[in-house]
């Protein structure tokens, strides 16, 4: 039987970081302030203290302390709080990729979907954002209203991978 465990970590500050102009300047300011580059599309960057996950060309999901990001954005973008609407779930164990294929449409089994990668997809009709933490773990960002249903779906599916 393929093993996978689903846990729901405590709520963390989540924000949408969106750029509407001067992306090169923002990227430069970001690198200077944070010490790492703004992640490319489909990638994440940072640490547990502050992680940015890029899901759209001009949008990142920010997890952690945003206190320095206002200055980084200046007049070129905005931060919007979104943590109340998203539940984080961690899928751990060798079976997390298989589990994500249940009701899915995204190739989570691809070897190229490795640690540091991100994706926005649909799982069993629910819009879910994914972030690969390691070979053995993947974080899913699930809309609050669907979280109970999707958790039930995953727990049921995990029994028969």
């Amino acid at each position, binding site marked *: 039987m393929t093993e996978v465990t689903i846990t729901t970590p405590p709520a963390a500050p989540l924000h949408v970081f*969106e750029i509407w102009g001067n992306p090169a300047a923002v990227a430069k300011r970001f690198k200077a302030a944070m010490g790492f580059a703004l992640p490319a599309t489909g990638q994440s960057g940072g640490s547990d203290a502050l992680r940015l996950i890029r899901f759209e060309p001009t949008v990142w999901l920010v997890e952690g302390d945003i206190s320095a990001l206002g200055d980084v954005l200046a007049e070129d973008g905005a931060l*919007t709080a*979104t943590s*109340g609407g998203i539940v984080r779930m961690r899928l751990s164990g060798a079976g997390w990729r298989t589990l994500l294929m*249940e*009701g899915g449409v995204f190739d989570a089994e691809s070897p190229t979907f490795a640690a540091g990668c991100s994706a926005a997809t649909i799982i*069993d009709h*629910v819009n879910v954002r994914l972030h690969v933490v390691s070979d053995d773990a993947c974080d899913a960002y699930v809309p609050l*209203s669907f979280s109970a249903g999707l958790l039930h779906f995953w727990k*049921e599916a995990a029994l028969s991978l």
Partner: protein
Amino acid sequence: MINFSFDGKAYTAQEGDTLAAALLRNGIGLVGRSFKYHRPRGIMTAGVEEPNALVTVGEGGRAEPNTRATDVFVYEGLVAKSQNRWPNLSFDVGAVLGLAAPALSAGFYYKTFFGSAKKWMFYEYFIRKAAGLGNAPTQADPDRFSHRAAFCDVLIVGAGPAGLQAALDAAEAGKRVILVEQDNILGASLIRDPQELDAAWIEVTAARIRAAGGRILPRTTASGYWEHDLVTLTQRLSEPGQVPANSVAQRLWHVRAGQVILATGSIERPMAFAHNDRPGVMLSQAVRSYVQRFGVVPGKRVVIATNNDDAYKTAQTLKDAGAQIVAILDARPAPAGANSGHRVYNDAVPLLTKGARHCLKSVSALVDGKTMEWDADLLAVSGGFTPVVHLHMQAGGTLDWNEDAQAFIPASSRQNVTTIGRAAEPQAIFKMVPVSSPKKSFIDFQNDVTLADVDLAWAEGYRSVEHLKRYTTLGMATDQGKLSNMAALGRLAEKQGVAIPEAGLTTFRPPYTPVTMGLIAGAGAKDAGAHVRRLALYDLHAAKNPIWQPLGYWFRPRAYPNGGESLAQAAMREAKAVRNNVGMTDVSTLAKFEVSGPDAAAFLEIICATTVSKLAVGRGRYTFMLREDGFVFDDGTVWRLDENRYLLTSSTGGADRMATHISYVRQYLCPHLRVSAVNVQEHHAGLAIAGPKAKAVVDALIGTPAPRHMSTEPATIAGTPVLVLAASYSGERAFEIYVDANQAKAVWAACEAHVQAEGGCLYGLEAMEFLRIEKGHLVVGGEVDGRMTPHDLALDKMLNKAGGYIGASGLVRPALSEGGRRQLVGLEAIEGDIPEGSMLIPREGASPQGHVSAAAFRIIEGGSVALGQLVDGFSRHGEILIASSPTRGQKARVRVVAPHFYDPAGERYRD
């Protein structure tokens, strides 16, 4: 040994037996009754193409009717029942229909059951009783069904020698490979012909494929080939009727493949001759399979009829197994088969079989112009081979005619699909023409279609193969004509005097083999197809045991009954609390968008049809949105939270649509604007406090004077930051309070405590509906139904005179402001209660001039009121109409009035 039962009698099977093999092992020849004539039928094949041996397997909710006995593997306790017979399989009263066969020929329904639709309803009952497949189970299926996606570089369908080799080559070349096989073991033709490549080769090859990272899915059928090389696979994780090991019975795979290789082999064809459907008549390769794979010899005295070399392998296999080969009837002229070592008759074709219900007794044939007869208990026939081109054709591929094989083979395809093995290169055969009487010469065994039926259709003028198919029902049974199509085409071509390719070909469509409804539904079979969306405060509501109301995917409290209150009683009590005192409700589901940036106002004035930029910080206004054609599609409020930051709310039901619309405008129409638009519908949980005492409650909660109507202020409740918006949907002084959903419980509890302390209560959607109808407020999906313009809803005075909003151009079209349009009106009952959804007519029998979109009872004064749409409604105030609902048998006399029944001046919600 494995125990199973058939028609209530206990039998034993061996490990690995199909039900068909097990029945043959136990000497059971009669397995079912045919669909139309109830003719006795046995087992004809050893694969999914089986047309005769259809049984119901399993019990209760797990019962699966119309299961092919050749496609279910026996497990301990399997319960199988024959179908379409009464009182039992051996003595079936329905067989009397066989005597009426001349009257039940092709087109029988069309010729007999004509007349009015009412008559057909009468006929249908009896036809359905008489016609026969298995009965659908009446209990719910207790098992689960899974849908799973998969991606690969190469998908190989069929694990025979060609498929296994192709999978091995691709896997060892570093490709991501999926190999599927409908059987529960690999090998396909190698299982019946192990001398070509033995079991060890299969095992080693499969191991190498797996070692190279390939995925092998046995008991999995590629059932559909869709656009963009998407192939659906149906995988049986448990056998029909079996309790699944992990509760999942079947899995539907959606495989997106870079390349698809079809190694689907070919299906042996039967021959058309009189009584060719009798138990004891089997396909030659099937006989070989039963002997080689299961160790079951289906007959002792065997006649073999063939037009090719392959059947000689069957003869040898049977002889090796101890059976007597009485004769081989080879349609080919001498010296075909001369060196086989068997008694071969050339220029020989079957004419007729004789036998009893359960078995075959003799075979007659025309041999070189003379009739001969042999006693036999098994007739193995091989009329050639039909390549399995179904998936290729589903993929949009074309077919070529192979004259040597007398078969269609795959040609080109617009998708990345290749066919290999016997499906691409079928064996050569000798072309033969049936010589027997066409009357009992069956070609479609499942639907009881004979050569005589094809002849009749031709005689009656049906020339197209598509017409022939529908008139005779040929190829329309659950086997989709796998055995019958080529025989029918041959007969049609013969009648037309053309070659088979010129006669045409029907289209193969998914699924290749029948798929259960549960598998299609997947996990959604248990919860009506989709997840329920839960409120952030679901647990708090659930603890009060409300009546829940589905609203889109959401479930929201409809009312909170006290004691034995009915819905109507509870809702009216709650609504009165709001009118007289104070009430509180959950409004978390409203759509909410946070729009930021220097161009936020400009962006919103494209989305909204009202002005936005003139709002002062801390103020809000009602707004609405139009489609590009000028019709209203949503409404809500817009609030200026800061210099460059706004909150836009819109309807719950239209939330997803609005999110898509905003994203479209942002990405495609306005990529140049300096704006960020974020969907924060679920970030903010929301509650509304409404009623004459609402302000006092909110004052106390936030510790400062509550904002005036259409103003907003940040505040703190229970130590939690909140946003207070002063807006009213109920018609009373009211406030919406938004809070980070993670912190909403404490805020809700504090607010509820204050509301209760003022003598107020919670209210649900039903009371909210009463309140808003009385006030004349719109609801999207009700009054805003996609057909109403701002003019029709009397919103035109609020339009942004500067234009520039989406829909502004569409709105100026003359037809949208001409007379004769439906307009929003109020309706007061003069007599009776107004039925919701009823049509508005000036008198009995007149055409409808509008309809009632929402109806309610006045909360304080009593009486039935409604909102509706009425042709030229603005100018018809005072008219008396009838609100009539014929489907419910309800009507009421109504007076047309303005759509505001309560506080039309809006004095109650202003300070």
